[in-house]
């Protein structure tokens, strides 16, 4: 159905609401890649079969990631008259009993993680209230608001993740989706959209945190027609998948943000550039684009506003460096994914030489919320210079591994201990590594630092795409740096000498150190190399490649010295 205005959108919203909150049982299975690797797909098939076998009147729905990676596979159940119950660790063998309980209208208390009484409807405001259930059947099940994992989280970017079926556009619309687009293209001038994003203080959610509004403004002012917008979903940090999760859990939030960005800068064409290997993400985004086109959110004369915009999903070849804007552009153009020197910046001369805005998925997912709730609301969240929230992949030596979204300005300690539940097996916390392979470590003694762009950069780390790797006392910092440098050496495009040869040689020296073959002048040499690679490399992959080394040297110099002088690895990791 083609949507031409508010009335049509309301019709789709009603349809979506009926699907989200049906008058029968709704069983939701987390089905993002992170869930599937833990067997969620098999669990979902088993549930569907069991529901049929036991004759339960229920819809079984795949949803995105709830963030509870440590409890996958997760299943959420809404039974009429009861709160939503979230179950964790629902393995295949548990399925028959779970469905049996549901068939009897009961709650399987022993597997329940928590209950949700009402669902926040972030975009349109207000809450959807579930049933209340009886105290007896809910006894001992904590309330969502009391679960430590969620208490300090604030979900804006992940507002729909784990809540809606990512392949059903009407469920996205039922959560306020595309109402921001309608408002934007029918009631606001492009300049007003840019102003709102600027006032909101939205900063790029990867890399250096450049203000999105300023990027949009310089592109909208740039001379030339045929401008482009690109959504950057090229995420290559080892072990980390925030963008992947969002793409798989809520593709429309990204797409709506992209369409609004296109309207703001005057682009008629756009690309969604997705890392190679994100098959499920590509599939869900392609479905999203197709459905959005069918609804008239893409194509000619969008929502009868006279605005035309079309978008293509482009799968990359998988190089880490293609997350860098100029390399990404070259990759779309069909060339080697090699960065080039800036200026000219893509906002002035980007794809095919035309002014181009490139935004990260998280940045774009914020945009629809800002358009409806306003800059003032958005800028009330976060710290003074870093507004809004940030999604982190909380991994490593931490009890509750998961995908978390927190208001900026929160301290690292709160994330690691309050949300993550601290370090497992009674080990001591040593450091946290942030900012991906070219980020840096922050030691335990600085864990009271607030998480914002400036503070992290000053501490020698970075926000970047949002990996947060917790390390315990059994981690060797020389080994960690060697690991990241090996990764970066392999991902260097090889264009410039400092990165191609310099990073390699740094890694060689570090390997020597880790094997007890380090020389006493090595640290000085590594420091010099780090400084000149930072100054001399073309792009940010090269310029930031020495960061892991530099941050470790800043906080853990004694470990280097132990390896070099005493030929000893204090953590007992490195062997000769």
């Amino acid at each position, binding site marked *: 159905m083609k949507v031409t205005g508010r009335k049509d959108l309301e019709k789709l919203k009603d349809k979506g609401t009926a699907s989200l909150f049906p008058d029968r049982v709704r069983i939701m299975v987390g089905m993002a890649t992170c869930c599937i690797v833990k067997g969620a797909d098999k669990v979902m098939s088993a549930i569907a079969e069991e529901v049929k076998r036991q004759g339960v009147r229920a819809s079984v729905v795949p949803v995105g990631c709830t963030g509870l990676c440590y409890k996958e596979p997760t299943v959420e159940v809404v039974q009429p008259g009861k709160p939503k119950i979230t179950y964790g660790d629902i393995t295949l063998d548990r399925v028959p009993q779970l469905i049996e309980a549901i068939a009897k209208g009961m709650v399987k208390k022993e597997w329940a993680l928590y209950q949700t009484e009402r669902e926040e409807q972030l975009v349109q405001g207000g809450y959807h209230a579930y049933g209340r259930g009886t105290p007896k059947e809910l006894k001992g099940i904590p309330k969502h608001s009391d679960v430590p994992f969620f208490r300090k989280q604030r979900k804006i970017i992940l507002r729909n993740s784990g809540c809606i079926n990512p392949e059903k556009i009407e469920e996205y619309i039922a959560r306020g989706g595309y109402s921001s687009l309608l408002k934007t293209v029918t009631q606001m001038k492009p300049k007003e959209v840019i102003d709102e994003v600027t006032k909101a203080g939205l900063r790029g959610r990867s890399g250096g945190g450049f203000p999105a509004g300023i990027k949009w403004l310089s592109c909208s002012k740039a001379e030339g027609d045929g401008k482009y917008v690109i959504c950057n979903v090229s995420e290559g940090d080892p072990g980390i998948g925030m963008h992947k999760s969002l793409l798989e859990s809520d593709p429309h939030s990204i797409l709506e943000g992209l369409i609004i960005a296109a309207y703001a800068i005057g682009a008629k064409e756009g690309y969604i550039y997705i890392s190679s290997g994100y098959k499920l993400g590509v599939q869900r985004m392609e479905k999203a684009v197709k459905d959005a086109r069918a609804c008239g959110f893409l194509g000619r004369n969008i929502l009868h506003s006279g605005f035309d915009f079309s978008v293509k999903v482009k799968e990359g070849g998988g190089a880490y460096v293609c997350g860098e804007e100029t390399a990404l552009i070259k990759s779309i153009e069909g060339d080697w994914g090699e960065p080039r020197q800036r200026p000219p910046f893509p906002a002035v001369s980007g794809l095919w030489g035309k002014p181009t805005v490139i935004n990260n998925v998280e940045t774009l997912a914020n945009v629809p919320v800002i358009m409806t709730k306003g800059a003032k609301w958005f800028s009330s969240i976060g710290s003074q210079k870093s507004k809004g929230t940030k999604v982190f992949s909380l991994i490593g030596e931490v009890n509750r591994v998961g995908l978390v979204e927190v208001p900026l300005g929160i301290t690292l300690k709160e994330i690691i201990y309050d949300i993550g539940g601290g370090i497992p097996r009674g080990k001591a916390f040593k450091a946290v590594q942030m900012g991906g392979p070219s980020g840096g470590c922050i030691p335990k003694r600085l864990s009271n630092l607030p998480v914002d762009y400036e503070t992290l950069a000053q501490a020698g780390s970075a926000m970047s795409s949002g990996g947060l790797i917790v390390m315990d006392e059994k981690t060797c910092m020389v080994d960690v740096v060697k690991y990241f440098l090996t990764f970066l050496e392999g991902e260097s495009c090889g264009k410039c000498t400092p990165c191609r040869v310099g990073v390699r040689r740094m890694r060689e020296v570090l390997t020597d150190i880790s094997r007890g073959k380090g020389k006493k002048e090595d640290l000085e040499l590594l420091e010099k190399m780090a400084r000149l690679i930072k100054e*001399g490399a073309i792009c940010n992959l090269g310029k930031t490649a020495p960061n892991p080394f530099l941050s470790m040297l800043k906080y853990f110099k004694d470990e280097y010295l132990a390896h070099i002088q005493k030929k000893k690895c204090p953590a007992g990791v490195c062997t000769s």
Partner: protein
Amino acid sequence: MVTVKINGKEVQVPKGATVLQAARKLDIHIPTLCYHEALTPYGGCRLCVVAVTRDGATQIVSSCNYEVAEGLEIKTETDVVLDIRKFVIELLLAEAPDAKILKELAQEMGVKPLKRFKPRNELCIACGQCIRACKEIVGVSAIDFAQRGYEKKAASPFFERSQDCIGCGTCYTICPTGAITLKDIAEGEKALLPDGSEVVGPARIIDNWKVGLELKRCKQCGEPFAPQFQLEYFTKKVKLPEDFFEVCVECRTL
């Protein structure tokens, strides 16, 4: 025209010119390696870096591909700039210790080989001049970069015998480090290509692209003088008469 200031001296250059061109106009020497004036600048080697101040912010950039803009202030020999250049040479010297051009540059800049790095003896320093020449000057694009990172080097597709190489030797002529070998073998002489196949002369052999291309004989003197493919390609490209290359340059009479 655009006015920029280099090391305190003002110079006017046309819009679109690069900082390197502007510096050369002032006879200010900036060393280069991957740069060649006949080719699109690449900006890879980082030897030609300079410090550019624009709107109050100073940035280290490669001068060969940095376009001039009104009011730019450029310094070509700051400490950082000189340190980066020396570092680049130190790194490359360990890659290709025997490359003449690197030894000369090292001497010019007072750089000594770093003993800490194990020499690699890989003459290709991934400057890409051969690739750009083959594409932009010859128009054949027989070669390109293969691999990435430290393994990156100019190669024929899949490191197999090039199907498109015409044997013109432009790559060989332009390569700054002598990483490309080109050899003509005489009538009846035999040679082995890196893939093990045998070539019988008269032929031109370029090991890097794994080709052994037949040389055409002059109709008059009977001497082999150029690869058959090259002559065919040039005849077509420049629209010469079909029999133009029947005789060699020496035997050609007007």
